[in-house]
């Protein structure tokens, strides 16, 4: 039976960053990465970028680590393998191929899959997702032949993919259950800016609606909506969220909820088992509660902390000490002439107050790219806990630092609202 000092399940950004950080700090310990994809580490974040789809960025830019990197760093990559069983007592992982691997420290960084479209006949050709490289390749092929497309969902994926499909010359209809885009994360004012930019970019938006029937034989040919409307389409892009496959962990005694439950050190309830990335449901020290986040930067930062803590748990000979994960998470997206970002806690809660910076008015303002609109979210303790930015991403770094430093807004509200005020002046000296 093969034994590894560090076994990592998941070859994405969390798993690969963990492996890289482990190697930087432990030159000799054996490391293996198990990945259900056969591809080496690639830029999943690039998959949803129009420039990639439209081949303005060369395809090869997708590869972030080459075969030589794994060899030089003595990191074994077991691609196309699926972990099916975990024994936390014996410290073994069983793979679908039948192989059993022993570990000393285990990282679960299995991420998630695109939530499948929960409709009959959703397996027709032309129904696409954009979660992994093979799905993206399938979408790329379909974009070349389709004339009409629908996008389902109102999040980052649909936003970026609608732009890509418009740039590729397709007729695009966006169908969402929600009353407005990004509900309930965004407010109606910000959402209106986004919808107006999308409409201006040629996207037809159908709100409060959903598909109830898929038409076609082998390929999708159209859909019927719950209000009876029929839409012809040869392509359906589905962006309705993420699911984590955790069934295989149930028997192992690892605590799971929507994701794998972890403390602020990214340790699970089972000794020597850690988690990071989209699958981790961790105790967030900034928000003071347990959350699960699906974004690149968060996964990357967690990979570093998980690696640090896996090494620190080696005992007295270790060079490093255990440290908690503390990070103001954020995500950015670009499309239709808008740059959108969300930082920290952007949920709508009655006790939260909003400080508006800039203007959401897209019509009366010809210089939207200069002014933009940010909403700074303040909690009951008068502290900034989150923010959303539309064409004001230049404010994000400073706001993130203010969130991190528990900055009190009292006495500074008018400064925060004034786009001519340099926010850097509010940072602790």
């Amino acid at each position, binding site marked *: 039976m093969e034994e590894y000092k560090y076994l990592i399940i998941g070859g994405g950004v969390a798993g690969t960053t963990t492996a890289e950080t482990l190697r930087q700090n432990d030159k000799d310990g054996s490391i293996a990465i198990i990945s259900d994809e056969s591809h080496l580490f690639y830029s*999943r*974040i690039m998959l949803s970028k129009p420039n990639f789809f439209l081949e*303005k960025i060369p395809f090869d830019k997708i590869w972030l680590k080459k075969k030589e990197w794994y060899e030089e760093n003595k990191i074994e990559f077991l691609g196309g393998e699926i972990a099916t069983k975990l024994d936390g007592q014996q410290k073994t992982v069983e793979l679908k191929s039948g192989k059993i691997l022993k570990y000393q420290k285990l990282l679960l960084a299995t991420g998630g899959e695109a939530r499948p479209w929960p409709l009959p006949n959703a397996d027709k050709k032309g129904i696409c997702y954009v979660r992994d490289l093979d799905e993206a390749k399938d979408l790329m092929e379909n974009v070349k032949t389709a004339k009409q497309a629908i996008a389902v969902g109102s999040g980052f994926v649909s936003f970026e993919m609608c732009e890509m499909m418009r740039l590729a010359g397709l007729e695009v209809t966006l169908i969402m259950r929600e009353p407005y885009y990004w509900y309930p994360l965004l407010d109606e004012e910000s959402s209106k800016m986004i919808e107006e930019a999308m409409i201006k970019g040629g996207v037809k938006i159908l709100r409060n609606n959903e598909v109830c029937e898929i038409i076609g034989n082998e390929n999708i040919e159209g859909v019927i909506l719950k209000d009876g409307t029929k839409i012809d389409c040869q392509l359906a892009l589905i962006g309705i969220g993420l699911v984590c496959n955790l069934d295989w962990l149930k028997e192992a005694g690892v605590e799971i909820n929507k994701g794998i439950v972890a403390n602020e050190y990214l340790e699970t309830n089972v000794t020597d088992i850690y988690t990071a990335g989209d699958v981790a449901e961790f105790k967030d020290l900034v928000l003071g509660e347990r959350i699960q986040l699906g974004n*690149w930067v968060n996964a*990357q930062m967690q990979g570093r902390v998980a690696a640090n803590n896996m090494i620190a748990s080696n005992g007295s000979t270790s060079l490093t000490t255990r440290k908690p994960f503390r*990070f103001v998470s954020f995500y*950015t997206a670009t499309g239709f002439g808008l*740059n959108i970002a969300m930082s920290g806690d952007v949920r709508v809660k009655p006790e939260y107050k909003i400080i508006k910076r800039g203007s959401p008015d897209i019509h009366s303002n010809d210089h939207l790219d*200069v002014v933009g609109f940010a909403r700074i979210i303040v909690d009951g303790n008068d502290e900034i806990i989150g923010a959303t930015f539309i064409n004001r991403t230049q404010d*994000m770094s400073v706001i993130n630092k203010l969130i991190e430093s528990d900055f009190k807004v009292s006495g500074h509200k008018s400064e925060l609202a004034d786009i001519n005020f340099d926010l850097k002046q509010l940072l602790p000296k």
Partner: protein
Amino acid sequence: MANIKEYARNKEGSNISKIVVDRDLCIGAASCIAVSGETWELDNENKAIVTNAGAGANAVDDATLLMSAESCPTKAILLFDKAGVQVFPK
């Protein structure tokens, strides 16, 4: 490279003397900022720029600067040594 921005670095003891951002590749993911907010910020086009009008090029040590470049999901940050040799990405 058509759309690039260059920053000189003259930090004492540093082996890196030039930082280049390929703005066509930059997607504003801001992972560089997560690693080194002292060096990086986003501009109003959602592209990474060096802080303090370029003065931030000297803000951190070589290891941190390299880590911020390595974290980029599109490899849009390039680093050069004093001899003009590209040290990242290799």
